[in-house]
């Protein structure tokens, strides 16, 4: 499998604060990569570099290169809107829009002019099916999405990305607002989506990283300490700090 995302010597500063230090990793296509590490180590920051969401924060400076499908996303020519269509993001707190279920899904295709009006119904249906929500919601398409359960909301947010045919899913602690059963069902969904998407997940839950991911990166104070196959990281970590973290000795 080839590298979908290649990050090299990535440095990021929030003002004077050096939040990412010489980070480099390659993310395999159609695999699940997890990022673990103690709070404040820069996991979300790294994730937000990959869809340029950090651009929205004032006073951020970024150096180094991030290539997706071989293209440098920070090179002058590429528009963040096109990038964000390809590299979708799922947030910690499910954030459906205050619109109907249908309009939530239709939003992406509309802003990217992906569909004619008569194709939208099919897109909505396919996207909901992709996240196993269709049977539950097919009679509630006109209901406000804010009335859904937390798990349904999070699935809907993933379906929104399916609707614009995202290729990469960035998930920042997507289950931390959910109960344990809903968490397991979302993990199951991730494994199912793995055949179509490249998935990056940030998680505080080490069992979750071990359960769902193919590769794992461990971060500490802005540095990527160790990166490799999940089984290797969890069974024979190379770095003492990784070992301390996964055995629960700190963090």
């Amino acid at each position: 499998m080839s590298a979908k995302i290649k990050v090299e010597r990535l440095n990021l500063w929030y003002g004077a604060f050096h939040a990412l230090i010489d980070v480099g990793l390659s993310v395999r296509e159609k695999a699940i990569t997890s990022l673990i590490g103690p709070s404040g180590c820069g996991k979300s920051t790294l994730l937000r570099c990959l869809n340029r969401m950090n651009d929205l924060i004032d006073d951020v400076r970024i150096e180094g290169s991030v290539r997706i499908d071989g293209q440098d996303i920070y090179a002058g020519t590429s528009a963040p809107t096109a990038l964000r269509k390809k590299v979708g993001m799922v947030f910690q707190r499910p954030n459906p829009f205050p619109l109907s279920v249908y309009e939530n899904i239709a939003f992406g295709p509309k802003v990217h002019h992906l569909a004619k009006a008569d194709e939208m119904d099919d897109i909505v249906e396919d996207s909901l099916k992709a996240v196993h929500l269709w049977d539950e919601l097919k009679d509630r398409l006109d209901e406000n999405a804010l009335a859904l359960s937390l798990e349904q909301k999070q699935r809907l947010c993933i379906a929104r990305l399916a609707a614009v045919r995202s290729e990469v899913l960035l998930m920042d602690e997507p289950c931390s607002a959910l109960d344990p059963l809903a968490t397991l069902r979302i993990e199951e969904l991730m494994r199912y989506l793995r055949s179509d998407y490249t998935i990056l997940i940030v998680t505080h839950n080490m069992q979750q990283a071990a359960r769902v991911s193919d590769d794992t990166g461990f971060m500490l104070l802005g540095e990527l300490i160790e990166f490799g196959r999940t089984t290797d990281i969890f069974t024979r970590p190379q770095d003492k700090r990784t070992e301390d973290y996964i055995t629960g000795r700190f963090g």
Partner: protein
Amino acid sequence: MAGFRKVKEFVIEKLIFASGIASIIFVALIFIFLLSEGVSVLKSTSLGAFLGGRFWYPISDPPKLGILPLILGSLLVTAGAIVLAVPLGIGAAFYIADVAPAKIRSLLKSGVEVLAAIPSVVLGFLGITLLVPFLKHTLGLPTGLTALAGSIMLAFMALPTIITIAEDAINAVPREYKEGALALGATHWQTLTRVIIYGAMPGIIAASMLGIGRVIGETMAVMMVTGNAAVIPTSLLQPVRTLTATIAAEMGEAAKGSPHYFALFAVGLVLFLISFLINLTADLFLNRGKKR
């Protein structure tokens, strides 16, 4: 010592209670007074002839007390003000809340506060000396004292209310909606017009209603620029007379206890009911927004 504190607390509590009750009692008394004086108009005319009558000649003999031209005059001037102020106010609120750079934002916010602080008689003064001649010349009218001039004045008065409340509503929209839309590749503009506006909608509607409520009872500026002809209006470009201007202009000369006097109270009652309904509706929307 402890006894003293208890007495003090008792007194303070009763004082607060009394002032709360007092404000309710005053409103009730005002309403009762208005009602009892206003209803007396029915001694000299029927309800239908009062509300639907086309002629307002309060001092002819017998007096003609039809307030339809006044109601329509108020509605026309207010409608014109809404058409001008609501889109402008909402646009400005979006600009201030979500687009303007920090410096321009604070400049605009103080500008809006200053606008809110201008006494309406001063605005009316500017209206007479600047706006009315301007309208007369640019539109080639026989007189610039028109419903349109009133609408423009009222729009200025409604703007601060609309902008301030709509801006609060926009700022109260959770950040997550904005992030979600941008992360899907929407532009800033698409995020505003397709997501944030829906999150802020109850507040925006309330802002518009309160802005309208603010101007429908407005008197001075309107009386100064609308020409005050009590005829049924057919266009924005002719003089009209509003409910408020009628009361202000005629109360001084109406003999106490005359049909004219009671009719003016009844006009006040109509006005009271209209703004009460508008404020009630605005409250409903504001509360609906809060509950979510």
